[in-house]
């Protein structure tokens, strides 16, 4: 005899969370607490996201060594996820890339790549917690082997315990720089240079707002001071940088605010200039975007609690707007509560207020951080014609300027159509924003009019073999 259950036509609402960083993990935990079992998909092999990235099996090290100050938080997030998994309160799909989202009627279809094989998944509701990537900016020599982003250098360190060279120069425009300098120092490698392209004065000015989050501020100040104490002071207000070398990096030349130029020998450079939200899935799901002046990037529109402009799609963490790990945790929970609330599941009003207050405080801090590390416009203002902007397609600044002058593109998608900018493997994730900056500068339109590259599936390359039936056996 069958037990009385819900009528067969009442299907459970399927919730899919994309991303198992702090935002995705807290969202999953929140749903689980309310009796919803989400599917959690992540491209990576292990949960944790960027900040709490775990080393692969066999490369385990003590959390303190990998995460420094954040070891306790990392351990908590990892533990939380493990508990959810062992209690079967989530359905975790690791090493699975979501490469497309389409809407049909009230549902969503996700296209997945797992173990080199295609799969699809239908979802009623989605929480996008896809995090961020480094914002790369081109500078002379940036395509030389031996040049990395700060994030890549950090990933190598966190997951494999590997440095990017013996003599390493680190360059940034955001809080990742002092952090990485310290992470290098902690493993006994003293960077030969630590350069910040943001002016120090901006940080002083932003102090009031930064004080809204004293612990984080102290952490930042501590990292900066500790780096100096260990003989690796961070030079602020760096005006220009150039990687030197023929077939690979052999040095770095840079100019400081006093007009002096410097040259040092190095075999590894890590440079990036803040972070950029990974928002292509939101774009494919049909979410509307707006330009955020402070961070100088496009962000998916969302309300205070994480609802996107598309009903059923919620966005949390760095994939919505750069806010860091603590914000991601809060926002993940908040988005999950909003989702539950929208579906008629009762949630704690008090908890929602608490989250709201905490996120407001964080957002003041974030605004201050953005003014402390303003977009380094001086780096894109004088890009020489010979410099490659789109490295997948090998398109130079000169070719782009020529295309702008002769073919009059009106927005960056048109510039793409005319010049091939962003038509390669990375789909413009690394160069689209630079194309928009060049277009704005040379066509005399605003950066908002220059627009953003529309996302097209697949958001990351997928092998043809993934669709060949013979492969499915693996």
């Amino acid at each position, binding site marked *: 005899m069958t037990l009385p259950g819900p009528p067969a036509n009442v299907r459970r609402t399927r919730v899919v969370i994309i991303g198992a960083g702090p935002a995705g993990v807290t969202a999953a935990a929140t749903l689980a607490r309310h009796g919803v079992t989400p599917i959690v998909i992540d491209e990576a092999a292990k949960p944790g996201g960027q900040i709490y990235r775990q080393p692969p099996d066999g490369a385990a090290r003590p959390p303190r060594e990998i995460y420094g100050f954040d070891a306790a938080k990392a351990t908590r997030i990892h533990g939380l996820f493990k508990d959810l998994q062992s209690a079967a309160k989530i359905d975790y799909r690791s090493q699975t890339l979501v490469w497309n989202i*389409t809407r049909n009627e009230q549902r969503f279809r996700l296209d997945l790549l797992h173990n080199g094989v295609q799969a699809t998944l239908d979802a009623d509701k989605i929480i996008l917690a896809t995090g961020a990537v480094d914002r790369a900016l081109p500078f002379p020599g940036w395509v030389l082997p031996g040049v990395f982003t700060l994030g890549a250098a950090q990933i190598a360190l966190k997951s494999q315990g590997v440095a990017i060279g013996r003599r390493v120069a680190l360059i940034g425009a955001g809080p990742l720089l002092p952090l990485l300098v310290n992470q290098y120092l902690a493993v006994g490698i003293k960077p030969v240079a630590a350069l910040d392209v943001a002016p120090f004065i901006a940080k002083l000015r932003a102090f009031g707002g930064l004080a809204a989050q004293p612990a984080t501020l102290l952490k930042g100040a501590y990292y900066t001071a500790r780096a100096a104490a260990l003989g690796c002071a961070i030079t602020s207000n760096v005006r220009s940088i150039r990687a030197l070398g023929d077939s690979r990096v052999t040095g770095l030349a840079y100019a400081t605010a006093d007009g002096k130029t410097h040259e040092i020998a190095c075999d590894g450079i890590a440079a990036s200039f803040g972070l950029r939200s990974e928002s292509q899935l939101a774009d494919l799901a049909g979410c509307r975007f707006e330009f955020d002046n402070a961070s100088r990037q496009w962000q998916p529109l969302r309300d205070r609690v994480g609802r996107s402009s598309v009903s059923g799609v919620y966005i949390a963490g760095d994939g919505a707007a750069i806010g860091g790990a603590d914000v991601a945790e809060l926002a993940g929970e908040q988005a999950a509560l909003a989702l539950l609330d929208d579906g008629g599941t009762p949630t704690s009003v008090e908890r929602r207020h608490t989250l709201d207050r905490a996120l407001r405080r964080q957002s003041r801090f974030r605004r201050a951080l953005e003014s402390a590390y303003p977009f380094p416009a001086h780096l894109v203002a004088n890009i020489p014609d010979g410099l490659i902007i789109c490295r997948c397609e090998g398109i130079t600044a000169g070719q782009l300027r020529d295309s702008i002058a002769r073919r009059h593109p009106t927005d960056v998608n048109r510039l793409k159509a005319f010049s091939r900018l962003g038509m390669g493997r990375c789909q413009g994730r690394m160069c689209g924003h630079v194309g928009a900056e060049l277009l704005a500068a040379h066509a005399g339109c605003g950066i908002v009019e220059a627009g953003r590259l529309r996302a097209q599936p697949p958001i990351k390359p997928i092998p*043809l*073999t993934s669709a060949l039936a013979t492969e499915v056996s693996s």
Partner: protein
Amino acid sequence: MTLANTCDVAIIGGGTAGCAAAVHLRRAGMQVILVERDRCGGGASGVNFGGVRTQGRNPVELPLAIRSRAIWSTLNELLGEDVEFDATGHLKLARSPADMAELEAYALLAREAGLDLTLIGPNAIRAEVPWLGAAVVGASLAPNDGQANPRLVAPAYARLARRLGVDIREQTSVTAARRTEHGFEIDAASATITSRLLINTAGMGAAAIARLFGEEVPLEAMMPNMVVTEPVPYIATRSIGVCGGDIYIRQIPRGNVIFGGGRGGGDWMDWRSRSSTETTLTNIPKLVDIVPAFRDALIIRSWSGIDGLTPDKLPVIGPSMTTPGLLHAFGFCGSGFQLGPVIGEILAELALKGGSSSPLDAFRIDRFTQPGLAAATA
């Protein structure tokens, strides 16, 4: 710049057809205003597969296609820029003896229409085109067919038209059009444009324009599915099609492989279209069967676009049957990129001389309705 709203010819729609017409009319001294909803070449003309193909067309379309092909040879000079036309030749493949018989029959028809095709049998195909897979049993080669970069052609026509003095109004939709005593009035944003003649090259939007003049065309939205891979070693030196038309393939010298076939999806009323994952995944095994060397490539992008499809898969080209001075050219059924250059010339001929040197009978707009019906509703 203040704009005069009076002209000899108003054109609705800035795809290849409309922009090419603007160029030829302006060169003949006409005052032309072209109104485009989005950006010139932002529609089907800018996102298509890039096939410049005469082979496989309905024989009634061949005279136009052959005439257009001749223009492609000198298009760079006309436009003053390189639109990457490459006469790679087009191979239509047979994957069965029945396919081969179809190719043989078509070659005879094509020859009559002036298109010479070379049939390649099973043994020769291995020797001559060694990169084709075992599934291929023969082919028909159109040596003069080729491919071009669709993202460049219509915008290049539009820029040339502008240089010649055509008033192009982008991001402006035509929302109403009517016949007046002396010609036409169209509402385009806040302006009302008056013209002596009106040309309807609005692509999928053209049926709605025709309807304003009492002409019904059962136009369906056609959204072909397009995929491109990362660059891989350049081997497919010819453009590829198949009997059945379910897949078509081309590679550009920088290595990217573009393949199409089947349909994407979307909502043409919103001018939104997208690739379909099912279609893409269905096409992949066919691609790999035809060119096994592409097997290890990665897909980097996919898309679709919106063209108009008629019941007999032939376009509408020619004068209105209800309204003197109105000309139509639309419904190109997925193969109007190749025709674009000649459509521009033909529309100019029709506008200036009232007739064309190319046979247009098969493309009459009233072929879909009962004779007399169109006139009755006018």
